[in-house]
Each structure stands twice: as structure tokens, then as C-alpha cells.
């Protein structure tokens, strides 16, 4: 049996929020390894800390204590500037509400992360075309988000997430705002990204049908990671 190396290693992670003088624990002593090229679903009730854990793995929030290593980089030790640079090349984001920039076309939205790279205009164009081809939206590249359906917008958002070729994609309820057919298309697309492009996907979801697409499902409850690892069918 093949043993996959862990691309994400989390050790003894604690995170809490302050509300006035009250300290609310959100994540408690999380230790978790996520293997390379794995599609992991993170489930749990609202307020269980799923999105917070996702944000910490993606380097957009700071832990109270503990360590997170992604691809061998201890991101908990990086400064804000270093984290911003790291995010631009190592993590792609997929959000529930797509979060495209409304004044930019599909093409321009996908091109946005590439502006931070040293790629030439021509190279950027090639990358964007390829990404839109993968999500099957080349015919809509000049459309603005308002001219696209929810499913199409999410496909543009996915293209934006992987266009700079990050190793990890984090998805926070990517099908939460979509109908069943569109949701299936998005999940199939994410599956393809794992199988064909070798990406690692960490997906937060409430939807058991979405979680079924994952290789592995982990449950969080009140900030504690359930010890049982559930292999998806």
C-alpha cells in the first residue's frame, strides 16, 4: 500500500476569540496531518471551528499556539508580508459566495492572482485561457460576474484558485449557494483537480453529499477534532 507524505502538518493548535472580556475557545489542541494529493472534507455543526481551521491552514488567520506546516513551511512563524507572498503561490481559495470582483470580466478575475507573479502578459494570457478551458468557460471569458450563473461564477472562482498552480486549494462551503446540478458540476470539477492536476483540497461543508466526493472526512465538534477518520465511499 502506498504511503502518502503529509503536505499539511498541524500540531497542538489552539485558537480562541475575544469578545469583550470573554475569551471563547474555538479550536482546542488540534493535531492533524493532511496527505499530499488528498481531497479532505471537514464537517461539523455551525460554530464548531471548521472555517477557523481552514483559515489557519490557509494562512489568513493567526493561531494562539501550536504549529502549522504546509509543504515544509512553518507558516505560523511567518510575518504578514511573508504570509501574503506565501499565499499567492501556495494556496488557492474557493468561497461559498464566489467573491469575484464585479468590475472585472471572468478572464480578468482569473488573471488577478497572476499579477503578483513575474509572468509576462502573454504568459498570463496562456495560463488564464488554460484555467478557463479546464473549467469549461472559455466562451464566457469576457463576461462579467453579473452575466454568469452561480455555477459559472463558482467555476471562474475555481479557475482563479488554481491558475497560479498552488499545491493546496481550500474551499469553504463551495456548493453552499448552488442548486444540486451546479453543485455536482463543481464537486466533479474539484475531483478532477485532485486526480488530474494533483492538487490537495481541504473542503469545509455541511452537505453530506458534497463530503462523499472527498477521500476522507474529518469531523470537528466544539473545536475538538474527532479522532475517527471516516473514509468517504
Amino acid at each position, binding site marked *: 500500500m502506498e504511503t502518502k507524505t503529509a503536505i499539511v502538518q498541524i500540531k497542538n493548535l489552539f485558537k480562541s476569540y475575544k469578545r469583550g472580556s470573554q475569551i471563547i475557545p474555538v479550536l482546542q489542541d488540534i493535531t492533524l496531518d493532511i496527505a499530499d494529493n488528498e481531497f479532505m472534507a471537514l464537517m461539523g455543526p455551525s460554530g464548531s471551528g471548521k472555517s*477557523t481551521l481552514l*483559515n489557519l491552514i*490557509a494562512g*489568513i*488567520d493567526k493561531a494562539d499556539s501550536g504549529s502549522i506546516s504546509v509543504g515544509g513551511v512553518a507558516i505560523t512563524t511567518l510575518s*504578514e*508580508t511573508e504570509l*501574503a*507572498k506565501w*499565499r*499567492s*503561490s501556495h494556496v488557492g*481559495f474557493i*468561497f*461559498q*459566495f464566489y*467573491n469575484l*470582483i*464585479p*468590475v*472585472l470580466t471572468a478572464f*480578468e478575475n482569473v*488573471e*488577478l*492572482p497572476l*499579477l*503578483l507573479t513575474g509572468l509576462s*502578459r502573454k504568459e498570463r494570457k496562456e495560463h488564464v485561457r488554460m484555467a478557463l478551458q479546464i473549467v469549461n468557460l472559455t466562451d464566457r471569458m469576457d463576461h462579467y460576474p453579473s452575466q454568469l450563473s452561480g455555477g459559472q461564477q463558482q467555476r471562474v472562482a475555481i479557475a*482563479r484558485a488554481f491558475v497560479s498552480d498552488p499545491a493546496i486549494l481550500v474551499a469553504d462551503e463551495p456548493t453552499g449557494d448552488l442548486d444540486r446540478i451546479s453543485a455536482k458540476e463543481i464537486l466533479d470539477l474539484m475531483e478532477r483537480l485532485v486526480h488530474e492536476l494533483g492538487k490537495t483540497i481541504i473542503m469545509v461543508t455541511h452537505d453530506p453529499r458534497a463530503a462523499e466526493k472527498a477521500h476522507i472526512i474529518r469531523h470537528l465538534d466544539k473545536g475538538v477534532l474527532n479522532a475517527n477518520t471516516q473514509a468517504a465511499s
Partner: protein
Amino acid sequence: MQILKLLLKNSFRHKLRTSLTVFGIMIAILAFGLLRTVVSAWYAGVEASSATRLITRNSISIIFFLPLSYKEKIRQIPGVKNISYSCWFGGIYISEKNFIPNFAVDAKTVFELWPEFVLTDKQKNDFLHDRKACVAGRKIAEKYGWKIGDTITLRGTIFPGNWDFTLRGIYKGAYKSSDETQFFFHWDYLNESMKKTSPNRADQVGWYVVGVKNPDLAADVAAAIDKTFKNSLAETITETEKAFQQGFVSMTEAIVIAVRIVSFVVIIIIMAVMANTMAMTARERIGEYAIMKTLGFGGWHIAGLIFGESLIIAFTGCAFGIAATYPAANAFGDAMSTYFPIFNVQSETIYMDIAASLVVGLVAAVFPAWRAVKLSIADGLRRIG
């Protein structure tokens, strides 16, 4: 390039709000430009002064006269090149509302001392040889429809009676800053009348205009003139034309200061309006800024977008404001030519317009940009949903 495109698209995303803000800035820049031009117009006489002209007047006050006999004594003083004299006549053309600056002048020398008032040789000659002749500036001639040969009657206030003059010349200014609203006639004509009606007022002049050979000698010549008439019945004060004009302006300095303050208040008000626009804009886009940060854009990239947007709006308003300033200044200058004979938009005013817009654009963006830099991505994403 794409960032610039985003900047432009963002700037005009909320069309009504941006249009109203641009309109507000345009009006503010227009008001600022006009008020600054009023201030410049106030100092136009000072600015148009020659460094080689001195004014000698009675040391008590300009309203007291000096004897005509001083003329030859002043001419003898080393450094003096030429000399002329004038007298404020204070005549009224038809009614008080038609204010015309009118002077009795020494016809033989007046245009030597004021070469910026340009007359044709024929008109100069006609003026010299007709004791009842007068010369008017181009602007007032146009304003009242005067033509060469017309008889112009002024009602005297300081020198009572109706005074008829024949227009023999219409002078033009050699420079943009030259005053084209003055009215000159022969001092000899006035003096002859005084000799008949008020002999004690005859052979008196309002002030002397002294041309010096070298501007560096001006202080020495001025001191020498005043020394010559020390302890006489009419002691003198001699100063450069600039200082003389400045003396008039300083009498109304409070008004100039008030105009200046109002011009800056206009800018401060529009700065507040612009800051409000940028604050609203940035608050609406908090989520987008968070998304951009997740993509790897740093706080300073976002701040750059906010500053850029603010500057685009400010400079768009500024461009429209400057474009509107010129026709507005022309219309204002024409309507107020009696009070502001020279009403030109100075290049300094345009630079100040641009500087004011730059300050408005930058200041308005400071707070929203600071918030965007400090924005935590997690907080920003939470605002989206």
C-alpha cells in the same frame, strides 16, 4: 496595466456618487481658482509696477498736493532719468456706478514713464497737440463704446463742474498685466481752469513719477529727493512704485485675507466630502479587499488602490474645475472690470488648483487606506457572509 484598469473601473463603479463628488470638486476648484484670481487681481497693480519708477508724494497724505516747482529740483538729483506728474481727478462719467480711474497728467512725459501704455504715434501726437484731449484704455473705450473724436464729459467732484474732453487716443497694454481701464487728460487743462477759479489750487500736482537710470539706485534717489524737501512746507515721501501700490492694497488687506481664508475653507469642505465618499467606498469593498488579500495582495497594494481611486476622482474634478475657471474668470472679469481692471488666471493659480486636488485626494484616502491595511482577512471575509 490590469491594476490600472481595476483602478479606473473602481473609480466609476458607483456612477452617481462619483459624478456628484467630481461635480463637487469641480465647483470647489472653480471657486478656489476664482477667489485666488481675485486675490491676484488685488495685487495686479503691485505686480505690474516697474522697478525703475519712484513715486514722490506729500508726506502727510496722498490727498495733499505738491508744488509744481519741485519738478525741476527733482530732475537735478543724480540718478533721475525723467520725471512726470499726475493728479487724481475723481471725475464721474454719467453716474457714480461708472467708475473710471481718471488722472490729469503731464501729456509730454506720461508715456515716457509708462511705456507699457501703447499708443500709435498719430494718436500720441493728436493727444499732445489738443489741450482738451484725453486718452482712454482699450477696455473702458470698448465698455462705453467710445470712438476717437468722441466728446466725453466728466463731472468733477474734487474739481467741480462739467469737464469736456475729446478722445484722441485709445491705448493698449503692452503686457497681459497692463491696466487698460485708465483715463488720462492734460494737467495743463486742469491747471488753467484752477488758475481762473481757485488760484490757491493752481500749480499743484498730486504726485511725481520719477524714472531712475538704474533700479539699484532707487533707494539712494528716493532718499535724496526726500532730503531735498526736508523742512519745507510740503515734505515728501518717495518710494518705489511697488511700495506705493502696496500701500493701497494694505488698506484693504483684511478683505484679501478674508478671501484667502474662504478659498481654503472651500478646499477643506470638499476634502470632507471627498473623505466621506472614500470612506463609504472602502466600507462597501471591505470584502473585496479581504479577497484580494487572500490572493496574496498586500495591505499596501490595497492602500494603493484606494489612494489611486481617490486621486483619479480628485484630478477628474480638478480638470473640469480648471477648464471651467477660464470662461468663468473671463465672464467675472468682464462684469467686474471696473473694480478689477486686470483679471487674469495666473499659472500659479492653476498649480495651486492641482496641489489642492492632490492634497484632497491624498487626505481623503488616508483613513480608508489605513483601515484596509489593518484589515484582518478573517474579519473581512466574515463581512461577506
